């Protein structure tokens, strides 16, 4: 487990296989009794150009060239494609911590529904929107998209406006 401090927020980076264990420890020993949010992030194409309409400039940003949308410098590389963030709160101590697990496309993470029941819908959303595989979830189905939807819309390789639109009268 690594601990990092950035912009006044604490991040704990946890091995994805031990997320449930870490969360149990944080709940029972450290007093983080509420799970506020579960957020997956896709870092595909981080630091390169042409991802999801993003006009990046991987060799740095030249202010003098017209339309130079891009970085002032290269962002730090990320260990794996997906980050799964759990935002925990401690009531009434008022402390917050972010638990972060890094996953590759074929990796799964253990469910925390048994630790906080509220994780149920958050984890379903992570699966639906980002295709994060959650192991041990009692009811892992799509939540915002239709059950027969293909793909995971918030992934960086899922284009805006590229989805088929179905209307009545169409066979």
């Amino acid at each position, binding site marked *: 487990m690594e601990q990092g401090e*950035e*912009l006044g*927020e604490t*991040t704990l980076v946890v091995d994805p296989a031990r997320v449930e264990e870490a969360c149990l420890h944080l709940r029972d020993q450290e007093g983080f*009794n*509420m*799970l*506020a*949010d579960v*957020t997956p*992030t*896709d*870092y595909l194409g*981080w*630091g390169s150009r042409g991802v*999801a*309409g*993003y006009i*990046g400039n991987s060799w740095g*940003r030249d202010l003098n060239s017209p*339309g*130079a*949308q*891009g*970085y*002032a*410098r290269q*962002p*730090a590389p990320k260990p794996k494609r997906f980050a799964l*963030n759990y*935002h925990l*709160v401690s*009531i*009434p101590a*008022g402390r*917050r911590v*972010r638990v972060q697990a890094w996953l590759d496309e074929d990796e799964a993470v253990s469910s925390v*529904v048994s630790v*906080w*029941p*509220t994780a*149920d*819908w958050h984890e379903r959303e992570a699966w639906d*929107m980002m295709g994060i595989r959650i192991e041990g979830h*009692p*009811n892992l189905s*799509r*939540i*915002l*998209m*239709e059950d027969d939807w293909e793909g995971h*819309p*918030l992934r960086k390789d*899922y284009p*805006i406006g590229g989805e088929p639109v179905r209307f009545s009268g169409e066979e």
Partner: protein
Amino acid sequence: MAVAPERPRIYEGSRIPSPVPTILAIPPELRDSEDILEVNFGPNHPSTHGVLRLVVELHGERVVGLRAVVGYLHTGFEKNMEAKSWWKAITYSPRIDYLSFQNNELVFVLGVEKLLGLAVPTKATWMRMCLAELNRIHSHLVWLATAALELGAISMFWYCFRERDQILDLFEMVTGTRMHTRYYQVGGLAADIPPGFFPEAREFIDWMPKAVSEYESLVDRNAIWLERTKGVGLLSAEDAIALGQTGPVLRGSGVDWDLRKAQPYLAYDEVEFGVPVYENGDVWDRYKVHMDEMRESTRIVAQCLDRLEEMEGEPWIANDRKVVLPPREELHTSMESLIHHFKIVTEGFCVPEGEVYVPVESPRGELGCYLVSDGGPKPWRVKFRAPSFVALEATATCMSDALVADLIAIVGSLDTVMGEVDR
């Protein structure tokens, strides 16, 4: 004088269904019964606050099974915001929760400012607080109007919309728009407070506490209202925390947790206000929390107006030309201002690399905004932690001993906005 019915007390232990916390399964003894009737409430039912679908299994009048289906209003806000510059993405945030638009705008702007490390002028901070509280009253008024309407108190709707319209008039005077104002900019406010706002706002806050008493006099001693709200939709403090509930739902269950007090943002540590907490965790207590919060918000607005009136002539936006649009009048005389304006609008400003999670207390509870920047002019990831989305997870627990008529009261009391649930 109405006679209040015997009120069921808050339960011991946990009522969260297992193994799926958000699905109420039919009890084993009724599983083979032929008297089970499956009913779809919604998605197009007026009492579902938009497009919520509840698949309810009824045994007589008792709710024995329940499953909430959401997603009918999914519009891909988060994905769209990733494709816009930080400056343009502000426009999306108020539309997520269309009743508390100022708070949604605020949380996004606060997140960007935290990434930028940008200091905001005092006047902007206090004006943001003033509008956020007016917006809280606005949101609670719409909640009260619709929740009471569903339970048959039709006249409440007109009384609440009378005051709501006054608030929207104030917003229109300040921002030029009644809803989805986009008045908060990264760095401060879009424009100075117009003359004439203070007397109008003072007139409103003088009237508002009386209006709240008027609403209470309409329903507080009404036998139907009492019977339909007291002891209905119970949620214990322990279950509320386990289910991640925040805002009026959590405070109605007896947990004293308000981010404005617990983790103050803006200038909430400099104003005096109370946090209403009620113990019984039923629909009635959630209603009382909403009523008291409107009074407390009025107090905050009054203190904000006092401070803002002293700040006449102070700047309302940060003086950082790489992020903030130059003043309008400079565009006609200064070449540099014109270039800055053009660059910020077309290309956007770059935000340093990093990730932040910024929570604020929206009218519905903890509204969080998680932002990731890669150092470029567009957000890499935007995620809104929507309090309504979480509130709907509690439906199965609240309904565990409900009758079909209570269903409407319970869903109403959780105060959900479907735009925010489905984003």
